[in-house]
């Protein structure tokens, strides 16, 4: 079975790469993936999300075997994995006033919350299904790079759905799922892989004082897939010409691991332009 790491060995696009380029900050994308600057730190939220995913994988594996996961074991697993992750990752940066133990407690509460929301009637079809598919535009022309990624979960209940797990600092606005790039990317891949359309659902646990579980379902059309491919083509042209633009108002700026490189970016760029001129 090809793994996501195998697919990463070739030049590619992925949802996280596209989202970073198109929606977060193309300059951050460039620092990380084009100029390959080593990030100064890993934001704690990224590590926290990663631990949460691993717990959800474990829960889903138990469900796939037709068994019921035990809440107490799942919360204990989060606690173990989180502490291990903090220990192993060298440069996790916590938000001000938040401790590792605060986050351990929050993670266990979120896990308990999502466990209460599990629908036993849902059948788990696959977990962490890696994919690599060609990117083909409306005229049938394929791009050089494939689209790669991993589907968190595929379930079956009144039709098939790709499910993505999320933790969120706040409740989702009504149209967030509708406008998100992620379902477009994943459903495009699913259609290429299996030749059929599929639904998409975000399973979100909101980090409120008392965690809240939300589900947001959405679908995508062929026209939306074609639009995505045009966005990718545009991104490729921008990369080719090194047209990277800082998103000065991105919510991500405060926790950006490339903040230092970003703050001096315009000075370096001026130098380059003067030399070239």
């Amino acid at each position, binding site marked *: 079975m090809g793994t996501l790491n195998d697919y990463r060995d070739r030049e590619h696009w992925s949802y996280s790469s596209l989202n970073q380029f198109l929606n977060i900050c193309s300059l951050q994308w460039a620092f990380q993936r084009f100029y390959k600057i080593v990030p100064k730190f890993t934001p704690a939220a990224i590590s926290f999300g990663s631990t949460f995913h691993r717990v959800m994988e474990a829960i889903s594996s138990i469900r796939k075997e037709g068994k019921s996961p035990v809440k107490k074991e799942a919360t204990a697993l989060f606690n173990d994995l989180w502490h291990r992750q903090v220990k192993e990752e060298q440069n996790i940066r916590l938000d001000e006033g938040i401790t590792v133990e605060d986050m351990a407690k929050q993670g266990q509460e979120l896990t308990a919350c999502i466990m209460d929301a599990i629908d036993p009637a849902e059948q788990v079809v696959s977990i962490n299904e890696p*994919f690599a598919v060609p990117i*083909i535009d409306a005229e049938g022309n394929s791009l050089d*790079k494939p689209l790669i990624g991993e589907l968190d979960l595929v379930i079956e209940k009144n039709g098939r759905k790709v499910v993505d797990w999320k933790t969120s600092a706040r409740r989702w606005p009504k149209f967030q799922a509708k406008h998100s790039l992620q379902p477009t990317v994943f459903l495009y891949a699913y259609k290429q892989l299996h030749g059929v359309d599929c639904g998409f659902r975000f399973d979100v646990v909101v980090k409120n004082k008392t965690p809240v579980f939300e589900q947001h379902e959405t679908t995508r059309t062929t026209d939306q897939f074609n639009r995505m491919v045009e966005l990718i083509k545009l991104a490729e042209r921008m990369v080719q010409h090194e047209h990277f633009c800082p998103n000065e108002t991105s919510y991500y700026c405060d926790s950006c691991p490339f903040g230092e490189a970003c703050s001096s970016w315009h000075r370096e760029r001026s130098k380059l332009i003067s030399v070239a001129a």
Partner: protein
Amino acid sequence: MLKLNASFSKKIPVAGQDFSSQSYHASVEVELSDALEPRQIQERIHETFKIVKEAVETELNGKSQPTNKTEFQPERNGNGSSEKASNKQIKYLTDLARVRDISVSELNSQAKKIYGADSIYDLTKKDASKLVDSLKTGNLKAA
């Protein structure tokens, strides 16, 4: 003093490029003793040619070190070099498939069925080339 010149050349198609091929050629010149019997000369010709042929095949399959075996070694899984097909190769494959109205999922199914690869991106360079050939010759058709 006798001089023996053995040479071997092989042309292979370039994946993803119509009407293109790459040619690999090697030749060796050795001196043989005048005193050799015709049968011995024949043996030396055979051995020398084998060395040259192996050298070309070795280069073609990305092996830098020659082997001691006279017969060409079977590759891993029997499917040729284990190096994965390049993005350009896969692009050519999918473009060909599109012209023949074969979807990516069908192409993936064929890759699995024929070569045991999970998807076209898991094909080796050699297997991708073979799949391209199957598409070109019409041996692979839309379901």
